């Protein structure tokens, strides 16, 4: 699918850059023009995402075959032929989508669009803010559609600097600390990914289409085929020392982003200090990149190790779920509570992934999408109250349901979805994850369900403290939620409801890809066992 000679994935990735350029040329005084150009750019993205949704062939699996990928764009980016000491250097601009990336593409488009409206009240250096937000958008979208590891890495790193500025300039009182902590943690993860990427590069060769000579490649799909690993190269073979090392490096890189305990400490700081819209993006999209990386890169490229490390992953998932929930329960700060609940909910994604079966994996990917929408709502909700009361202390409120009825209605959808009430989207994905995991790791799954109880506990307790009980005189005059805020929340609430009642809307997209991924990872390990 092409428009004006460029494929739809190129458009959806680079439309925000066009918006950014527009924002940069608009004179400083016309703040509305800047806001609207950002809104238009992200709206175009949403339209493109909808087109992708309806044109997506649900039967194609993708994952490791180019034929199975959709909306593929492939062009030579860098091709240096005459380097005998390095081998031919060949980097491709290779984009494509399958059932694993499409839900993330939809999520990114939607959340970015809503984030622009959540940022409407920003007045400090608006131009820089919108430019950084749009640059961040391109980086995130690029990560989800890139199928060339080098390209993936460039997009992955492209996000760091905008995120640093967005937290550091427009954040709360401890923003400097939170921003640099985020930057350093993520860069630490990135350099480990970089080293693993180079090791993979020197291990995988593919025959060149024209001449047939074997050339090194960054092509992710080629890296998934055990036959492409050159004998005697660093990562050839199965379960070797170097492969373990590379897998662990990749895992830490992605774990920092998820974040997996004990690499999670940047997250509460970043969330609490970031402005609302940025918290929404952080929780809604950035965290998903960690689990997406594990599923897109670690699992299919190191299938035998994905199986080998399944139970340690289940264990960290358990820790994430329970520890996150316990921490959330102890929080006084509304935003910090949501931040820790994210850690807990991402644990469910990890648990589903560790199951290594279709139910668990589908649950995991669906949970990635649902957590994106639900947590985005939660952070928007915190933003609404913080804009009015300028405090996030849970004990400072009470009886808000009386003064802000509309707000309370939207809020309860998000809260109940977060605690996994049947009929809302969170329930389905959590149920699938636990169902899948139970078949593989009984004890760990049973212990993990403790997290659900704890989640219900802190969510309901929060609801009670903030919205029920005696109204606090101090907040009697708080205005109810306004149109713009409703506009950011209602689409998410509709999606949460719709997917809770009819999850096939999203599950159809991913089923064949996830089935294929599960088979591939399971068999990939054993197939390689046959060929040393």
């Amino acid at each position: 699918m092409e428009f004006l000679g460029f494929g739809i994935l190129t458009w959806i990735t680079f439309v925000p850059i066009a918006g950014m350029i527009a924002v940069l040329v608009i004179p400083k005084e016309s703040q509305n023009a800047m806001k609207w150009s950002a809104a238009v750019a992200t709206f175009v993205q949403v339209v493109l995402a909808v087109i992708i949704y309806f044109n997506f062939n649900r039967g194609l699996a993708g994952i490791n075959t180019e034929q199975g990928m959709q909306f593929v764009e492939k062009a030579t980016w860098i091709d240096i032929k005459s380097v005998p000491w390095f081998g031919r250097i060949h980097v491709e601009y290779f984009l494509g989508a399958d059932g694993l990336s499409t839900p993330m593409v939809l999520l990114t488009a939607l959340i970015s669009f809503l984030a622009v409206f959540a940022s409407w009240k920003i007045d400090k250096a608006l131009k820089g803010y919108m430019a950084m937000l749009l640059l961040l958008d391109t980086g995130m979208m690029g990560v989800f559609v890139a199928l060339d590891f080098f390209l993936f890495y460039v997009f992955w790193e492209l996000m760091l600097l905008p995120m640093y500025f967005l937290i550091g300039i427009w954040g709360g009182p401890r923003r400097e600390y939170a921003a640099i902590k985020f930057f350093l943690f993520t860069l630490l993860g990135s350099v480990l990914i970089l080293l693993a990427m180079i090791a993979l590069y020197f291990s995988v060769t593919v025959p060149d289409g024209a001449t047939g000579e074997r050339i090194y490649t960054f092509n992710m799909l080629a890296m998934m085929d055990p036959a492409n690993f050159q004998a005697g190269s660093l990562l050839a073979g199965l379960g070797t020392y170097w492969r373990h090392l590379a897998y662990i490096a990749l895992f830490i890189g992605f774990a920092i982003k998820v974040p997996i305990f004990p690499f999670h400490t940047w997250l509460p700081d970043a969330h609490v200090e970031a402005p609302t819209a940025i918290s929404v993006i952080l929780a809604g999209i950035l965290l998903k990149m960690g689990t997406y990386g594990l599923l897109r890169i670690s699992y299919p490229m190191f299938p035998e190790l994905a199986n080998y490390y399944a139970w340690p992953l289940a264990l960290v998932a358990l820790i994430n779920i329970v520890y996150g929930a316990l921490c959330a329960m102890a929080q006084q700060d509304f935003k910090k509570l949501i931040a820790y609940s994210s850690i807990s909910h991402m644990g469910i994604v990890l648990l589903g992934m560790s199951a290594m079966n279709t139910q668990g994996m589908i649950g995991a990917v669906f949970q990635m999408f649902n957590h994106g929408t639900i947590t985005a709502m939660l952070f928007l909700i915190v933003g609404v109250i913080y804009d009015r009361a300028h405090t996030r202390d849970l004990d400072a409120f009470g009886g808000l349901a009386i003064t802000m009825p509309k707000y309370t209605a939207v809020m309860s959808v998000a809260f109940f979805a977060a605690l996994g009430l049947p009929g809302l989207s969170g329930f389905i994905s959590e149920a699938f994850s636990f169902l899948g995991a139970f078949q593989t790791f009984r004890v760990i799954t049973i212990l993990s369900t403790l997290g659900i109880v704890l989640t219900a506990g802190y969510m309901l307790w929060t609801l009670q403290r903030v919205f029920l009980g005696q109204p606090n005189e101090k907040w009697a005059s708080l205005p109810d939620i306004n149109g713009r805020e409703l506009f950011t929340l209602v689409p998410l609430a509709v999606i949460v409801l719709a997917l809770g009642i009819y999850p096939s809307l999203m599950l159809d997209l991913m089923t064949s890809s996830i089935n294929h991924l599960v088979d591939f990872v399971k068999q990939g390990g054993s197939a390689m066992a046959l060929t040393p």
Partner: protein
Amino acid sequence: MAEQALRSLSQFLPETSLVITFCAAILIGIIFRKRPQIVPVISLLGIALALWFAVRQMGVSQSVFSGMIVVDPFAVFFKVVVGSSAIFILLFSLYSSEVQSTIKRLVEYSSLLVAMTLGMFLMSGAANLLMMVLSVELTSLSSYILAGYTKEAPDSSEASLKYIIYGALSTGLMLYGISIIYGLTGGATDFFGINKALAAGSVSPVALLVASLLIIAGLGFKISAVPFHFWTPDVYEGAPITITAFLSVASKAAGFAMLIRFFKVSFIDSSVIGLPTGFWASLQDFEWNKIVAILSVLTMTLGNLVAVWQNNLKRLLAYSSIAHAGYMLMGVVVLSDKGLAAVMIYFVVYLFMNLGAFYVVMLIESKIGSEDIDSYKGFGYRSPFISVAMVIFFISLAGIPPTAGFIGKLFLFAALLDAKWIWLAVVGALNSVISLYYYVRVIRNMFLRDPEGSPAPVVFSIPQLSILVILLIPTLVFGLYYSPIVELANASLAMFGLP
């Protein structure tokens, strides 16, 4: 003999034109005593001419002046790096308040810069121990004087004195090492002779180790490798910033050229075959590269850790450049063409990003009169364009895509992983995380902190900004499209006399 010298002379045009420029600069300085401003222009033209001759030598591979100097693509590459940075430095000098405030001494300044460039050109091609010492001395003597150029400032004089003392010591050590080698090899002074003598065998390994350590000490001084770096921060802080920038790029490039050539040519074991393409073996299992590996780890780790505590931008960049020397040493460790090419790629990238960072510091200093990190508070709002440029240079120095610095690191790590030096690659990667912290400290002050009071916007002139843009474009473009620098490194790998 005379015929041979004449033939050599035809391959000596870059150096010859520098010699002529040097003399011309002094003479013109004396004749036009009232208008010293024309001398830098003459020097600029002379260096540009030398650069042009050097580029024309691309592809030539021969030894001149009875093996004293070789002309080969490897030397040409480093001459180009040195020459281009000299041109940038002269352009910077037009806007340097330190240089322009002492306009009477512009003649010395420019002519010594030319002399220093000449020394570095000779260093790039030196293939004989005597030539090595001579060219190092020519470079050093000019730089001692230039480091103390602003003699009104006490720290500048201090810098110069420190530089001389350390320099003299390290040259002494290097000479001592050379004399041991001379004895060990039975009177060989050119690298090929040394190689032949070592290949013949029966050289005491202990003596060889001592001699190599002493020579490494001398060269380590030039590239400011730890533990021979003690002069660097003080000299970099005290010297005029243009000279600091020049030392940090060109002097390092020449030092690396000499280090690589000396070790590769002298210690290559051409009898070992069957290694993968681009790898070579060291004679008699003499693992000098392990020494370099240790130096590399010390250099980058110390450079980065100390830089974290610096509050003066010049000093911060001094330690950062020590760290970068450490990164580049990683490329020397692996004994492969991949490693050498990575060093070269890094130098191209480093030329632009490091000069760019120094240039921004210089421009800001000329407006606000301070290099202190605190005075940068809120500067991003007073002068957005050059602050954004600074962010790009710093992000590039930290090695984050999509900037050129990332490509430099990518090729270094690639060379290391390919040779299975995993632990060194991990140390290098962790170091780039540390380095981010101090680069971001500056960025933080520029953008995350508000300016004190309500200072006026700072405006820079169009020519000042165009120099900045010339440095900025490659820093960004090579990050996304790096074919040209890889091709350049590929074409520059060949050394005279080696297969």
